[in-house]
Structure formats: structure tokens, C-alpha cells
């Protein structure tokens, strides 16, 4: 049972354009969401997070949007740069269910930023 879904395994975007990575979840107890970025042969690194009390969080070129009614979140990267090429994982936790520290991850989206 995949509670966090990233339906696009890969995405190719031209340098300078916007990258939009999508994530859907099914567990209504999830109320804290994170994006991690992973380069080959390295561990995932934290990128940005959002609590369910917000619908948007911005950090430089990265913005995460949360639509609770649709159980959907997205990560926008603008402008995209070649160094952004990596696998992006969406993750969720359920603090209200007492599992604040247990992250549930999606399967990842491989982003390729082309010149």
C-alpha cells in the first residue's frame, strides 16, 4: 500500500524553465511534508518542508505548495539549473498519530535539467 505516490518517475526540463514535481498521498493523518533530493551514491538531503497549517512555503528557488483537500503537494523549482538534476523524494509524517519521526517516502522523480 503506497501511501505517498510520485506518479512521474522522470521529468526533463530546460535550464531556466520551471520544474514542477508532484506528489499525492492517501493517509489523512499526514500533516507534515518534506522534499528530499538525492544525487547518485549519496544519501538524500533535505530540501524544504511544509506543515499542513500552511499552503505554501518558499525558500529561494524552491517553493512547495500543499492542497490538503486534494491530498496533493508539489515542488516548484524556478529557474531550473543543471545542478538540480537529481532524484527528488516526497515524504510525509503524521505527528498527530504519534509517528512524527517516521517518514513515509514516495518512489522518487528523476529530474534532468538540460542545457
Amino acid at each position, binding site marked *: 500500500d*503506497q501511501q*505517498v505516490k*510520485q506518479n512521474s518517475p522522470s521529468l526533463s526540463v530546460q535550464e531556466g524553465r520551471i520544474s514542477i514535481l508532484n506528489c499525492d498521498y492517501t493517509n489523512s493523518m499526514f500533516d*507534515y511534508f518534506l522534499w*528530499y533530493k538525492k544525487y547518485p*551514491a*549519496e*544519501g*538524500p*538531503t*533535505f530540501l524544504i*518542508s511544509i*506543515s499542513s497549517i500552511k499552503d505554501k512555503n518558499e525558500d529561494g528557488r524552491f517553493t512547495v505548495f500543499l492542497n490538503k483537500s486534494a491530498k496533493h503537494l508539489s515542488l516548484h523549482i524556478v529557474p531550473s539549473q543543471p545542478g538540480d538534476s537529481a532524484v527528488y*523524494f516526497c*515524504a510525509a*509524517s503524521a*505527528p498527530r498519530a504519534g*509517528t*512524527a*519521526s*517516521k*517518514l*513515509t*517516502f*514516495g*518512489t*522518487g522523480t528523476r529530474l534532468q535539467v538540460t542545457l
Partner: protein
Amino acid sequence: GAGVSQSPSNKVTEKGKDVELRCDPISGHTALYWYRQRLGQGLEFLIYFQGNSAPDKSGLPSDRFSAERTGESVSTLTIQRTQQEDSAVYLCASSFAGGPGNIQYFGAGTRLSVL
């Protein structure tokens, strides 16, 4: 070192053998996590240690899997009588404390191959 360190980086073993994987968390981090990533899948939570509290073992897939942590330092994940389906990348993470606001920092992982 400054980051989470895992050893070995690669481990090849024969079916039925026991393996031990090691994780050195970031100094001062009280929380430590183990995850598993099978090919083409997302990260799967295995176990969580927080200080001197009883660990959350809810993600361990079978009683062949166990983990220990010495105080707030090194952790070892042991897999007994390995099976081919245990082949995966095993990732360790640590955070300053447990809970959603505490970013989990990941090591590069141990790639386990069971022949």
C-alpha cells in the same frame, strides 16, 4: 566527521549468512533512524531510536532484522539468515531530536547484495 557515516559502503553476501551494518550518527544527534530502499522503490522506514526511550521497531520486516544503539552513538543493524529479497540500500539518518521539525540527515547508505 561532520556527516552521518555508514560502513561498509557495499556488502555482498551469500544467502543464509548474517550481516552487520554500521552507522555513526552526527555527534550530538539524539535520534537515529534506519531505512531501506529496494530497487525502484521509495525509502522504507525500519526502526527509530530516540535517546534512552524504547526504540520504535514497527518497520522491521521480520524477526531476522534487529538493531542496537549504544547510548547516543553508533548503531548496528543486523540481518540474520539473509535472503535475496533483503538486497537493498540500507540508509541511516540522524537528527538533533525526534519530531517533524527536526531534519533527518542521511548517510550514503550500505548497498547489500544477497547472492
